[in-house]
């Protein structure tokens, strides 16, 4: 029993800290700063706990909870990205008067939900984790409750997400009915391609998961929620839940659905191609950066899913590598938005960036690096992300998927180039307020340096992600 609790230590620590900080927040007035800093400390402590835990595979509580290198990696990725997202947005939160003490606590709760998602080995635990995460996200989307757009995006997200959760739950119940178990490994054993009912269930689950990672055709909520929610929340939405969602998706394909590869592969190829095309084409006409990043994230999820669609270990690994680099790029991109402050207001229109390279060369060059990386131009990190994915896709001789993917890269390069054009080529020179925000600057700097220096030693990350799938 004590051993079981040891394995669950990160989750237990996180839960207790959430309760503790919540109490502090309730009883101390104007406690935002205190709660915020404590939450950051909790995240850091959790990171150290995970780093210090042994790496062997452990299954506890009737094999419903699993701790392996896969879940450890994703937990670390979730924590580190949350830490950067949270800290870089601090001054934004202050400036926009959404500095409610619940803010960081709700983020911690959603992290807890994601922990259970990536560690689940059972339909029930997975669903509970997913719902805990989703409920926290609904509140976060509408945290600026006096703002009409924020509330609207919260409601929109809630209604659509609840629908998809319903589909997911229906899929789970069908799966249980047709296989007789909620355990992933037993399901995997029972699920063969003659089990038509279970394949039906697989489609429902796939739809629900596609919604959570905002893949086409279940992406409709993304642009509106991204635009409506405050930027600090959008940056969280664009990064952390995507990581957890993709982890879950990979897990489902890798364990319970591993024997019906041919059945889900067709669906996954379709979703992937549709996401890549929509992400590339719809972003061209956007005027709002957040909306543009929403479409760009749909496209990027399409590439990550292309790796999953290849249905091989290299494919899953390339997909994990893709999402890791995606996280680095998006944290950098959103941190740049915090530097676009003019007369006390944060600017969101692409036109506001026109000619900033003259007055703010550092901001301009950071944006340049991140955008070229998002476009997948070598030698930046984004290229390697795509390279590994297409390497995995071509290994399975899926030429159509690879060629569509690479052609959409060219189309999407157009709108990234458009932003660069506005920053560098336009005559009008706009200026922003001088922002002295060390955390944001360090975040942008780190993100850019990772993207630039990635080509020196791609071995490193590649080895890590490949080791996640060794059974």
């Amino acid at each position: 029993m004590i051993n079981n609790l040891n394995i669950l230590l990160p989750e237990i620590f996180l839960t207790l800290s959430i309760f503790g900080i919540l109490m502090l927040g309730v009883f101390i007035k104007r406690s935002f700063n205190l709660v915020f800093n404590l939450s950051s400390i909790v995240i850091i402590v959790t990171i150290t706990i995970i780093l210090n835990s042994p790496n062997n595979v452990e299954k506890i509580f009737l094999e419903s909870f699993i701790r392996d290198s896969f879940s450890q990696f994703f937990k670390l990725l979730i924590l580190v990205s949350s830490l950067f997202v949270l800290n870089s947005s601090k001054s934004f939160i202050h400036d926009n008067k959404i500095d409610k003490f619940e803010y960081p606590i709700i983020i911690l709760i959603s992290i807890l939900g994601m922990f259970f998602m990536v560690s689940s080995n059972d339909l029930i635990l997975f669903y509970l984790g997913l719902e805990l995460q989703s409920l926290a996200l609904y509140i976060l989307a509408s945290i600026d409750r006096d703002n009409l757009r924020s509330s609207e995006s919260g409601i929109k997200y809630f209604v659509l997400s609840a629908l998809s959760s319903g589909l997911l739950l229906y899929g789970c119940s069908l799966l249980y009915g047709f296989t007789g178990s909620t355990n992933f490994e037993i399901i995997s054993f029972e699920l063969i391609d003659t089990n038509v009912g279970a394949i039906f269930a697989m489609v429902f689950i796939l739809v629900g998961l596609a919604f959570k990672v905002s893949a086409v055709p279940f992406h409709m909520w993304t642009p509106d929620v991204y635009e409506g929610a405050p930027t600090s929340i959008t940056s969280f939405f664009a990064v952390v839940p995507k990581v957890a969602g993709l982890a879950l998706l990979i897990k489902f394909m890798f364990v319970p659905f591993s024997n019906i590869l041919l059945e889900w592969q067709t669906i996954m190829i379709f979703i992937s191609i549709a996401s890549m095309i929509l992400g590339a084409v719809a972003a061209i006409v956007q005027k709002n950066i957040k909306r543009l990043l929403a479409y760009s994230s749909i496209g990027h999820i399409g590439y990550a899913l292309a790796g999953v669609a290849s249905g091989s270990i290299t494919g899953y690994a390339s997909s994990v590598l893709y999402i890791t680099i995606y996280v680095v790029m998006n944290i950098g991109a959103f941190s740049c938005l915090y530097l676009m402050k003019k007369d006390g207001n944060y600017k969101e229109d692409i036109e506001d960036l026109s000619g900033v390279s003259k007055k703010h060369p550092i901001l301009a060059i950071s944006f340049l690096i991140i955008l070229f990386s998002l476009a997948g131009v070598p030698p930046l990190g984004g290229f390697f992300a795509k390279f590994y994915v297409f390497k995995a896709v071509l290994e399975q001789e899926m030429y159509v998927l690879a060629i569509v993917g690479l052609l959409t890269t060219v189309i999407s390069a157009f709108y990234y180039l458009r932003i660069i054009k506005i920053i560098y080529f336009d005559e009008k020179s706009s200026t922003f307020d001088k922002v002295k925000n060390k955390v944001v600057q360090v975040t942008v700097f780190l993100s850019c340096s990772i993207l630039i220096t990635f080509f020196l030693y791609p071995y490193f990350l590649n080895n890590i992600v490949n080791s996640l799938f060794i059974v």
Partner: protein
Amino acid sequence: MNFPILSTLIFLPLVSSLFIFLSKDQKNNASAIYISLFSSLATFVLSLFLWYSLDLNSPDFQFIEEKSWINDYIKFKLGVDGISILFIVLTALITPICIISCINSVKDRVKEFLIAILVLETFMIGVFCSLDLVIFYLFFEAGLIPMFLIIGVWGGPKRVYSAFKFFLYTLLGSVLMLVAIIAIYWLTGTTDITQIQEIKIPREYQNLLWLAFFSSFAVKTPMWPVHTWLPDAHVEAPTAGSVILAAILLKMAGYGFLRFSIPLFPAASEFFTPLIYTLSIVAIIYTSLVALMQDDMKKLIAYSSVAHMGYVTLGIFTLTKQGIEGSVFQMISHGLISAALFLCVGVVYDRLHSRLISTYGGLVNYLPKYSFLFLVFALAALGLPGTTGFLGEFLILTGSFQKNYIVAMLATLGVVLGAAYILWLTKRVIFGKTNNEQIKSVKDTNKLEILMLVSLAFLVIFFGIYPYPLMETLNISVDNLITNYEQSLNEINIAKNDQ
């Protein structure tokens, strides 16, 4: 010797661009200019040293550096042979000239401009050194970023359109090459080109892979009908940008044909020879005719570049020793001559801010030194014996007569047309009546401009009279290329007969 000389050569400009980035802003950007000039000259000296110490009697790649990179089979592998060394030296030579030229012509954001040029130099040298397909692709594509910025930030009025066209055209061409590279990796298990040559790609895959590579190289060369980005990019780019574009970036594709298409896909290269001949002939004749009708000097030289590159592709795919040597020679020669012609246009553009031929006329009366140098390069461009331009075209035509005399005859027609548009350009710009009163008050070339142009003119005439150093460098490597090509063709034919 274990000193990583090629890595030093590649990353020296990059590191110095970092210093420029960190250097303090000063009046006239003196420190930035000195750092960039010094580092690019150091690169040039290093490249000459490399040329000097290259063993010309060995057909193998030399100064090889090898390191596990993406995995154990996709390596960071560099090396040079007789063909690539010439391009490296050319790159290292053209870059300091560009930097000197920008002292006069770039007024805005000089520091950033120098950084872009040096970063571009890193990528260009990288292209010519790489012996691994992935690292080649990496450098090949990465060059787009600085060139996109050079055209877009420092270019002319229609720069945005041209920069986008340049970027998207090239990217679209290259993504298919990436598919092909990964496909080769799964077919052979490696992307090291020397190993792929030994393993040999199966005949049935060669045609598709060749086409994928061709899509990238054809855009970059540029071959008719995908050449339309080049005139736009040239016209809008600043002088230094045009020089680099014409002198080096276009050569990457010709180099790519030699280094990758022919050795890796010999059967496909033979199969597609008629296609290349046709496109080259169309490029030579059609773009020469188009060049005749241009009223913008830069556009005229840009179209002439397309025509000259048409000779290069023609020469490469004759697959004879003369043809290939002529092509490489023509690429080097065109690198020097077109760079010089763009610099010449830049000189008068800096003074009168017009590229239209009709603005000028009778320059010889007011700018005698300039007119003399312009005439030298114009005559070299039309292939006057005694200049490098003649030798390249002569060898290519000799090579193509051996294979197909109709093609050779049509190509010879291009020589005549080339003489026509160049001479007509010279007549309208240098001689004739002075229509523009402003010309009378214009100053002749200053010392820096003379330095740049005379050094290029010297090389054009020196190698035109004494091509031996270049030919000697090429000799063994080209022999090796052709022997390998014929050997693998024979093997394939034998295999076919056995079946």
